[in-house]
C-alpha cells in the first residue's frame, strides 16, 4: 500500500468528522456549564446532525478513500441518511425524556452523537477494520445508553446483558474477520471480492468458516434468530427512547455493513469458491430469515408488555428485511430499513410519552381506554402499529411489498421465503391490533394522567407520521432513486480491484 494511493480525502469522511466533533463540543459544553445544558446541547446536536446530513448529500457519488478504508456508494449515502434521520428524531425526543426523568442532561446528546459517528462509519466502511471499528463505536455507546437510568435496576440489567452478549458476539465476528483475512490475505472488502472472483483463495475452508462467524456476528447485531434472545430483555429494560434509537439506527447501520460484506464482498460467482460461498450464505440467510420472523411473531402474540412486544416485533422485522438479501440487491433492504426506522421510532416515541417517568406504564393493560382521552397520541400509535403490521396505505405496507415483490421476481428459488414472510405478516397483524383494541374498546384504566407533549416531541411525532404516510403513498420517487442507485452499484468501477 503506497502512501500516494491512499487518497486522503477528508471531504469523504466529513459526515463522520462533523458528528464526532459535535459530540466533543456537546461534551465540553456540558462540562463547562454548571447546571447542565440540556437545551443548548440539543440545539448543538441538531445543528451538527443537519450539517452532517448536508455533508452526506454533498458526497461524491462514488469513490474509495483512505486506502479503501472508507467507500462511498449508494448504500452508504442511503443508509447514512437513515442513520441521521434516526439521530435527529432521537435528539428531538431526548429533551423531554431527560427533563421528565431528571437525568443528567448533557451526556446523553454526546452519546447519541458518538453512536451516530460509529453508525456512519459502519455504513461507509470499505474495509473489515472499519466495519469492526464502526460497530464497536456504535455498540459501546449504546451499552451506556441502555443503562442511562443508572438508579433503575432494570436498566442496569439491560445494559449488562447487552454488554456481555454484545462483546461475546463481537468476538465471533472478529474471529470471522481474522479467518477471512487469513484466507484472502486482505481486509479490504472490494479486494476480497476480487480475490474470490479470481479464485485466488489459499484456504477456502478458512474463508467459509470466517464468513460463517461473521454471519453470526451480524446476525446478533440485527437480532436475528437464534441470536435474538438478548433483544426482548434489553429493549424492555432500557429507557424507551433508547430502545427506539437502538432498535433502528444501529440496526440499519449494521444492515449497511452486512450488505456490503455479504451482498457485495461475498457475492461473486465467477469462481467455484465464490459460487460455493454465495449459495451457502444465501441459503443460510434464508433459513435464518424464516426462523427470525416466525419466532419473533409467534412469541410476540403472548406478550403483555408493549415494549417487549415491540422487541419481538423488531426481531420479526429483521427477518423480513433479511428476505431482501437473497436478491443480492441493496434497494429493498434499504427501503425496508428506512420505513421500519420511521414507524418504529414513532411507536416508541408515543410509548415513551405514555409510559411516564421511569417507564412505569408499559403493560398493554395500562393502555385501556386511553383512545379518546389523548386522541393525538393514541391515533398516532395506532397508525404506527398498523404500519408495522403492514396495512396499506402506510410505509410498512409499501416496504414489505417492495421487498417481497423484488424477491419474488429476482429469486425464483426463494419464493417459498416470500410465502413464509407473507404468512408471517398476516399472523403479526393479530398482536399489532391488540393494543389498538385495548386503547379504543376497553374502559379507561384508573389513574391515567394525560401526558404533556413538548414542542420538540411534537415535531418528532409529526416527522414520523408524515414519513409513514409519505412512504406509503408516494414511494415512487424514492424507489426510482434506489433503482438508479442499483445501476450505479453495478457499473461502478471497483477501486479496490487493484
Amino acid at each position, binding site marked *: 500500500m503506497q502512501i500516494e494511493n491512499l487518497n486522503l480525502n477528508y471531504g469523504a469522511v466529513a459526515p463522520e468528522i462533523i458528528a464526532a466533533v459535535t459530540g466533543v463540543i456537546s461534551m465540553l459544553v456540558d462540562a463547562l456549564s454548571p447546571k447542565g445544558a440540556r437545551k443548548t446541547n440539543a440545539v448543538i446536536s441538531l445543528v451538527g446532525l443537519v450539517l452532517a446530513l448536508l455533508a452526506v448529500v454533498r458526497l461524491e457519488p462514488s469513490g474509495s478513500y483512505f486506502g479503501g478504508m472508507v467507500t462511498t456508494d449508494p448504500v452508504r449515502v442511503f443508509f447514512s441518511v437513515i442513520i441521521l434521520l434516526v439521530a435527529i428524531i432521537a435528539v428531538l425526543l431526548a429533551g423531554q425524556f431527560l427533563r421528565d426523568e431528571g437525568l443528567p442532561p448533557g451526556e446523553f446528546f454526546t452519546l447519541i452523537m458518538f453512536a451516530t459517528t460509529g453508525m456512519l462509519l459502519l455504513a461507509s466502511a470499505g474495509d473489515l477494520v472499519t466495519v469492526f471499528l464502526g460497530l464497536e463505536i456504535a455498540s459501546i455507546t449504546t451499552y451506556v445508553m441502555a443503562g442511562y437510568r443508572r438508579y433503575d435496576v432494570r436498566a442496569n440489567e439491560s445494559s449488562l446483558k447487552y454488554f456481555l452478549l454484545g462483546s461475546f458476539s463481537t468476538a465471533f465476528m472478529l474471529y470471522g474477520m481474522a479467518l477471512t483475512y487469513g484466507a484472502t490475505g486482505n481486509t479490504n472488502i472490494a479486494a476480497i471480492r476480487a480475490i474470490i472472483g479470481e479464485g485466488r483463495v*489459499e484456504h477456502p*475452508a478458512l474463508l467459509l468458516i470466517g464468513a460463517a462467524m461473521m454471519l453470526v456476528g451480524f*446476525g446478533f447485531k440485527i437480532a436475528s434468530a437464534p441470536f435474538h434472545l438478548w433483544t426482548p430483555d434489553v429493549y424492555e429494560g432500557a429507557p424507551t427512547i433508547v430502545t427506539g434509537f437502538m432498535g433502528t439506527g444501529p440496526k440499519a447501520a449494521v444492515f449497511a455493513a452486512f450488505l456490503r460484506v455479504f451482498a457485495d464482498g461475498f457475492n461473486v460467482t465467477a469462481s467455484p469458491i465464490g459460487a460455493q460461498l454465495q449459495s451457502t450464505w444465501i441459503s443460510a440467510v434464508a433459513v435464518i430469515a424464516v426462523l427470525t420472523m416466525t419466532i419473533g411473531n409467534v412469541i410476540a402474540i403472548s406478550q403483555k408488555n408493549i415494549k417487549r412486544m415491540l422487541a419481538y416485533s423488531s426481531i420479526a422485522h429483521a427477518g423480513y428485511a433479511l428476505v431482501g438479501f437473497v436478491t443480492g440487491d441493496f434497494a429493498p433492504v434499504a427501503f425496508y430499513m428506512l420505513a421500519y426506522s420511521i414507524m418504529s421510532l414513532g411507536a416508541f416515541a408515543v410509548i415513551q410519552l405514555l409510559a411516564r417517568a421511569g417507564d412505569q406504564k408499559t403493560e398493554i393493560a395500562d393502555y385501556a381506554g386511553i383512545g*379518546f382521552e389523548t386522541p393525538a397520541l393514541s391515533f398516532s400509535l395506532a397508525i404506527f402499529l398498523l404500519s408495522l403490521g403492514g396495512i*396499506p396505505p402506510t410505509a410498512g405496507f409499501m416496504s414489505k411489498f417492495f421487498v417481497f415483490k423484488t424477491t419474488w421476481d429476482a429469486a425464483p428459488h426463494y419464493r417459498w421465503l416470500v410465502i413464509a414472510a407473507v404468512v408471517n405478516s398476516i399472523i403479526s397483524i393479530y398482536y399489532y391490533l391488540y393494543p389498538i*383494541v385495548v386503547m379504543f*374498546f376497553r374502559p379507561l384504566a384508573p389513574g391515567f394522567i394525560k401526558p404533556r407533549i413538548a414542542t420538540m416531541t411534537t415535531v418528532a411525532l409529526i416527522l414520523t407520521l408524515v414519513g409513514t404516510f409519505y412512504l406509503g*403513498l408516494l414511494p415512487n420517487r424514492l424507489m426510482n432513486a434506489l433503482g438508479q442507485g442499483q445501476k450505479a452499484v453495478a457499473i461502478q468501477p471497483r477501486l479496490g480491484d487493484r
Partner: protein
Amino acid sequence: MLKWITLAPLIGALINGLFGKRLNEKVVGLIACLSVGVSAALSFMQFGKLLSLPADQRVITEHFFTWIQVGAFRADFAYLLDPLSGLYILFITGVGLLIHIYATGYMHGDPGYYRFFTYLNLFMFMMLTLVLADNLLLLFVGWEGVGLCSYLLIGYYIKRKEAGDAAKKAFVTNRVGDFSYSIGMFLIFTAFGSISFVAKDGVPSFLTQAASRPVEALWSLGLMGGIALLLFGGATGKSAQIPLFVWLPDAMAGPTPVSALIHAATMVTAGVYLTARCSAIVVKSPTAMTVIAVIGAATAIFAATIGLAQNDIKKVLAYSTVSQLGYMFLACGVGAFIAGIFHVMTHAFFKALLFLGSGSVIHGMHEEQDIRKMGGLRKYMKITFVTMSIGWFAIAGFPLLSGFFSKDEILWKTFTAEALPHGWGKALWAVAFLTAGLTAFYMTRMMWLTFFGEERFGKGHDAHHGHGGHGHDDHHGDHHGDKGHGHGTPHESPLVMTLPLILLAVLSIFGGFVGVPHALGNIIGIHENKIEHFLQPSIAEFHAGEHGAAAAHGAAAESHGAPAVAAEGAAKPAAAPAEAHGDASTELALTGLSVLIGLVGIGLGVLIYSKKPIRHMPSVLENKYYVDELYETTIINPLEETSRHVLWKFVDVKVIDGFVNGVARGVSELANLLRYSQTGLARSYAAVILLGAIAVIGYFVVKIFGIQIGI
C-alpha cells in the same frame, strides 16, 4: 370532478375531527350533512353526464398520481366511473345523505356527537373510494378503510364491553377474508400482469384479458376458478356470508344509523360489488359460480331461520340482512350479476328504511330493543309505523314494491341458471323460494310484535336490565337521564328522523321500476329493463362456451369496450326477445308463486302472532345454531392455547431452554445449571448464541466438502 365526490366527505371528517370538539352540535351536524350533500349532488351530476354518453362509451376516468410502480406492477390513484360504479355512488351518497340527516336527530345529546360524524364522513370517503377505484389495490384501500370505520363505529360505545368485543370480532373475521382477497389480487397480477380495471401503459385490463380466456370445465378448478373463489373468499368476510357471517349480527352493538348505513345499505354489499366488478373472471369458471350460488342460497336460508327466533329488533334485521346478502350472491353465482346489483340497490332502500324505523322505535321506546316488550306501537308512532310497513311489504316481495322486482328477477334467473350443473338451478330456486316465505314470515313477526297487539311495555318489571346480552343503544344516558325506562309513553321521533323515513319509503315503493323483468314488463307496459340495459357494459355474462351444451345461446361477441369488460351483452338484445317469448309463461307462473309465498308468509305470521305474540322458539334457532360457540371452541380457543401453552411456554421456555441447558450440562456442573430452567439469564443466552454459531459454522463446513479442502 370525481375527486370532489370523495373529498367532500373527507373534508367534512377533517373539520369535525379536528375542531368538532369545540363546535356546537348543530354546526357539526350541518358540516357532516353538507359534505355528504355536496358529494351526492356531484354524484348525480356525474351520473347525468354518464347517461348523456352513448351506451358503449360510458366511462369517465380521472387520474391523480401513479401510486406504485415496481417493474410491471402498476397501481394508480385513479377513479373510474362506469355504469356499475355510477349506480353505486348514487345510492351510497343518496341513502348516505338521508342517514346522515336522520343521525343528527338520533345522536342528539350524545357526548361523542362530533366523533360519530367524523367516522361517518370518513366512512363515506372510504366507501366511495372503494367503488370508484380503478384498480384492485386502491379498491383494497377503500375495502380496508370501510372496515376500519366500521370497527370504530361498532365500538362507538366504548364503555360497553360487548361493543368492544363485537368490533374485535368484526376485525378478526374480516382479516380472514382480506387474506383471501390479497392472494386473489396477487394471482390476478401473476396471471395477467395487471390489476387495473382499465388499460394502462398499453397493458389491457385484466378483465379484458380474462374475457378472452376459455371457460373452464365444471368441477375443475383452473386459474380463473381459483381467482374467483379467492375473491369470493374476500367477499364472504365483508358481506357476511357463510362461514364468515358471525360478525354482522354482533355489529348491531353500534348505533342504529351505523347499522343502517354500513351494515345494511353500503359496506356489506361491497362483496357483491367486487364479484360483479370481476364478473369477467367469475363467468369463466362454472365451478366457482356453483360454489358462490350454493353458499349464497345456504346463507340466505340459514340466516332467515335464525331470524325467526330473534327477539332483539336489530338482530332480526341483522339476520335479515345476512339472508338478503345471500340472495345477492346467489344471483352472482347464477350469472345474474345485474339482478344482484339491482337487489343491492333496492335492499339499500328498504333495509335502510327498516333499520332507521327500528331506530325510531328504539328511540321512542327509550332504548328498548326487545320486541317482546313492545306491542301496539302503531298508535303512538304513526309515521314510523306506516313507513316501516312499506319496508316490510317491500322485503316480503309484495307486488310492485321495489323488493318484489329484484327478488323476482333473482328467483327467475336462478331457475333458469345455465352455469350450474343440471338441476341445481331448480334446487337452489326452491331454497330461495322457501327463504322468501320465511322472510315474509319473520318480518311479519317482528312487525306484529312491535306495532300490533296488546301493549307489553310499561308493565314489565325492569325492562332494561333483564337483557344485558342484547345491544342497547344507551347513548341517551344523560339526555333522557332521569326519565329512565318503564314510565313515559312511547313517542314519535322528531321530523329530522321521520323525514328520511318517508323519503326512503317512497324509494322503497318506486325504486323497483327501473328494473322490471321482461315478462312482467310486457304486461304492465314497461318494456325495457332499464337497469339491465344500463349495467350491461360493466358486466360480463356466462357463456357455456366450447364444452357446454347451451352453446346455442350465442357465441361470445367480443367487444373491447373501454371499461374493459367485454360487452358480450351486445349479442343479448337480439337473443332476449326470443327468450322472452319461450319462457314468458313460466316466468309469470313463477312470479305468481313467489307473490303467493310472500302473502302466505305474511298471512301465517299474522295468524300465529295475533293469537299469541310471545312464543317459545326452538332454542337452536334462538342460539343461532351455536355457530359462535362452535368457532369459539374449535378455532379461537385452540389458537390462543397453542400460542400461549405450546409455542411460548413449551417451545420457547421448555424446548429451547431445556435444550440449551442440556448442552451446557456437558461443560458445566450438572446440578448447578438445572436451577436455571428459565430464561432471563445472560449466560443461557450466550449458550444459545454459541449453539446458533455452531449450527451456522457446521452448515458452512458441511458445504466445504463440496469443494477442495484447503488446509
